[in-house]
């Protein structure tokens, strides 16, 4: 008597499953904002003590790469008017790797660079002495009226010049170098090897008061 119902299929009707899933899918599609914590990292200088005047840093004019951006977003790079920032990173690389008057340590650094970077060294006495600390400084000065977008564009190009130098030293592309997280010792070693002796010397001056509020 208690025999199995052989004929009736025991499957649950799954035809509308796709519709339900679609509904949920569309809900999550609409509410999704893929979190992006990407950006350009910048370290601000330490706080100024009002009782102590800022330390006088004496640098030769040839060791500073001046980038001025005015309130109309026009660029003045090393005294020359520039229309766009396209060539900026190449100029910067030439400036950083100029090796105009290297001391002993800088000569050692120069010898450690790969040949492609060594070719950049023009030994121009009017440009930077060496890329080590106190050697080549990139100075960005804006107005209060300069747009943030333009400022970021310039900073982006300066960072690009440095990252491309670092990446070339360790034989990676700039994208690969930037993607290094330093989470594993091997990655950290690569990062340090790229940076070694060539610090990112970017000086961002206080904007002056013209053309803003």
């Amino acid at each position, binding site marked *: 008597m208690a025999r199995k119902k052989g004929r009736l299929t025991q499957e649950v009707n*799954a035809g509308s*499953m*796709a519709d339900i*899933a*679609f509904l*949920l*899918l569309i809900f*999550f*599609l609409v*509410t*999704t*904002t*893929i*979190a*992006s*914590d*990407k*950006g*350009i*990292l*910048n*370290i*601000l*200088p*330490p*706080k*100024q003590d009002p009782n102590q005047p800022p330390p006088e840093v004496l640098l030769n004019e040839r060791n500073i790469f001046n980038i001025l951006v005015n309130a109309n977003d026009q660029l003045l790079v090393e005294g020359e008017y520039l229309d766009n920032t396209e060539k900026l990173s190449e100029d910067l690389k030439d400036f950083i790797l100029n090796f105009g008057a290297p001391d002993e340590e800088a000569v050692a650094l120069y010898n450690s660079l790969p040949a492609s970077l060594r070719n950049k060294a023009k030994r121009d006495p009017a440009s930077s002495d060496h890329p080590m600390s106190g050697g080549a400084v990139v100075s960005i000065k*804006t*107005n*209060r*009226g*300069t*747009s*943030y*977008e333009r*400022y*970021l*564009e310039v*900073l*982006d190009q300066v*960072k*690009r010049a440095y*990252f491309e130098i670092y990446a070339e030293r360790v034989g990676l592309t*700039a994208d690969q170098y*930037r*993607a290094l*997280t*330093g*989470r594993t010792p091997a990655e950290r070693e690569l990062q340090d090897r790229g940076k070694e002796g060539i610090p990112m010397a970017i000086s961002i001056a*206080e*904007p002056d008061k013209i053309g*803003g*509020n």
Partner: protein
Amino acid sequence: MSKFKKKTGTSQNIPTSALPDIIFMLLFFFMVTTVLREQEILVEQKIPQATQLQKLEKKTLISYLYIGKPKNTGMFGTEPRVQANDVLINTKDIVLWVNQEKDKLSEAERDMITISMKVDRDVKMGPISDVQFELREADARRILYAAVGKVQN
């Protein structure tokens, strides 16, 4: 007899039994990547583009400052304002806010706090430098200028 006679007998249906599985796979992907927005953004946010983006390691160390023109211009005016958490704050309150954010972190991590500045592209450098001055006062000197990727040419 024509060579192109219709093949009969074969069913022309595409099997759709795997469709729910595919949809579920997509669904799970979006469920996992979704971050429900926990706060309302009160200022305009058109994030500028840049190429040299870096990703930060620890997300717990990041605090966000939103800077831009208020969306509700009738109430807050048209000048760029700073939003921290879910309120608009004045520039001079930033030090207080940074200290509150630092208190949320453990002692060892306090110096590593990173401020992610999400700035609208139409903001001028004036307000930004004021904010940066306050951040220097508060000794939160690691800054991330939030930007979205641009295709390099």
